[in-house]
């Protein structure tokens, strides 16, 4: 019990810090900062989906931005064509994307490792081409504009700040659910597959089904992120849902560390900081960003959180040793 509590301490501390941050920041800063926070949190949801797939289940997919787009367009369609309210749009985006991912999972997970990764790159390209050309679904290359904001039980998220609160609430719930997943038997079978798929198979885990479920969960997270993005931005365009965006998610989780949702959070924060904080570097910004990614990978191949944890463990052992020798 004590051990469990101790393990969760960083999560609690970080959550408390974030709640404080999110509550205080909008009072003092501009729309810009609030929007950046919203975008970062939406990215965090997508990175969390990569965490489920890569961190827990060991599968590397480059189609996440595509699923993000599907979620966004489903929500956008429902909201602009008024098939239903905000809640319907959100649920449809989450379930629709999850269902699609689940079905695709059955087809795609017949492939292993690199083959799956490359098939997912193919899927990403197909989805992007669809977003550009399927006018009825996505509004074509011009995209979908004037999407109404999120409304629920008389509460309307009109201002940037209230949108941020809605996104933050969704992120909290999603993180909590993923932590539950981590401690569940399903989560353990994900990890079994990650560590050794053949052994997992021989222990009676249906690896195809389990991996498809992981894909569906990651799809649901991307769908939620998509619905949030539709409401935050009010405009959807194919330019957002690209292979490049998917690679950014992978970079984010790797920078943060694949071992825990905290890694996803730190990675998202680090890249957002690199991209937005160094805007004054003008056209050197992207170059610095690239160099930053290489340097971080060289010095922290386990990510900031993973590397930090290793460092902390070493430090603790070192201290215990010195204590023992002092006695």
């Amino acid at each position, binding site marked *: 019990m004590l051990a469990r509590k101790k393990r969760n301490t960083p999560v609690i501390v970080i959550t408390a810090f974030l709640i404080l941050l999110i509550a205080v920041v909008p009072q003092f800063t501009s729309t810009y900062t609030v929007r950046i926070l919203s975008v970062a949190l939406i990215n965090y949801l997508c990175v969390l989906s990569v965490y489920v797939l890569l961190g827990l289940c060991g599968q590397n997919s480059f189609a996440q931005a595509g699923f993000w787009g599907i979620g966004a367009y489903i929500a956008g369609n429902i909201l602009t064509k008024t098939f239903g309210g905000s809640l319907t749009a959100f649920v449809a985006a989450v379930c629709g994307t999850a269902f699609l991912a689940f079905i695709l999972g059955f087809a795609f997970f017949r492939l292993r490792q690199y083959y799956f990764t490359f098939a997912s790159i193919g*899927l990403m390209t197909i989805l992007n081409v669809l977003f550009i050309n399927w006018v009825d679904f996505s509004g074509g290359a011009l995209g979908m504009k004037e999407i109404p904001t999120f409304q629920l039980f008389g509460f309307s998220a009109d201002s940037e700040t209230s949108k941020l609160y809605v996104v933050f609430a969704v992120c909290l719930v999603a993180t909590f659910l993923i932590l539950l997943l981590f401690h569940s038997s399903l989560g353990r079978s994900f990890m079994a597959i990650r560590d050794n798929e053949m052994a997992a198979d021989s222990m009676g885990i249906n690896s195809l089904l389990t991996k498809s479920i992981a894909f569906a969960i990651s799809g649901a997270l991307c769908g939620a992120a998509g619905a949030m993005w539709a409401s935050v931005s009010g405009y959807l365009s194919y330019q957002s849902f690209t292979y490049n965006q998917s690679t950014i998610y992978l970079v984010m989780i790797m920078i943060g560390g694949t071992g825990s949702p905290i890694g996803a959070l730190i990675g998202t924060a680090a890249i957002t900081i690199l991209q937005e904080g160094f805007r004054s570097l003008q056209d050197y910004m992207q*170059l610095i960003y690239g160099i930053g990614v290489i340097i971080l990978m060289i010095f922290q191949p386990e990510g900031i959180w993973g590397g930090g944890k290793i460092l902390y463990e070493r430090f603790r052992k070192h201290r215990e040793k010195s204590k023992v020798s002092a006695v």
Partner: protein
Amino acid sequence: MFIQLLISGIAVGVIYGLIAMGMVLIFRTVGIMNFAQGDFLMFGGYFAYTFNQMFGLNIVISLILAALCMGVIGVIFMRTSYWALRKAQAKAIIVSAMGASIVLREGARHIWGAIPLTLDRVKEGSVVLAGATIQWQYVAIIGIALLMMLLVYFLLEKTFIGNIMQATAQDQYMSSLVGIPVVVSIGLTFALSAVITGICGGLLAPIFFLNNTMGTMAGSKAFAAIVIGGFGSVPGAIIGGLIVGLVEQFGGAYISSTYQLALIYIVLIVFLMFRPKGLFQEKIQEKA
């Protein structure tokens, strides 16, 4: 129309095939897919541009000089974004290659500017063959590609350096035990891979033009070629490239011009469903 599509399909296909071959060489040696390979293509094109347009050299000489420069770039790339990470997990190396890809792309923009550029063709004009008009550049691409394939085959199979590289690819630890300098061998592999891809860039630049993002699209098609061919197989990569090129041309003409790009990947995915390990399957058993 048929022959027209066939020839351009083959010409573009061998280029995809060569880029894929570059990736396969690296993959066989270090077990990592190089996500920055497309940017080697772009850099090679820019080097050829520098020698050809800025210094006014003949295009063939420019291509050879560009190839030498690419060899250096390959070694620098290997030293900065692979060697320091060789003991880390594969994911970390992929991400560092993505970082390198951004650096190469943005670096090229700072050096050569963002406005698209062009350079000389190996031979101007076109020839009419069986009712189809074929640009000489396409013929040159096919010819040079075949020549390069032969050279690589000869280098890998018949020379001492090639044997060292092959040995390193098979077992790094064992090769270090028998006295092969592994770092040199891996460096040579990266250099060779960059040289092959760089020359492709110089050949493609006059017809598709140079800009700093030209590598992304070509790179992702080369991925498709590798998967269709089966990982780790050099002939597989070439044949995969040809299939991608032909599907692109014939699919675009006969099935759907709008979804031409998507078609390649639909074929790829459907193909994988029936043959999950590509055309030339890996000979090595999956490790438990």
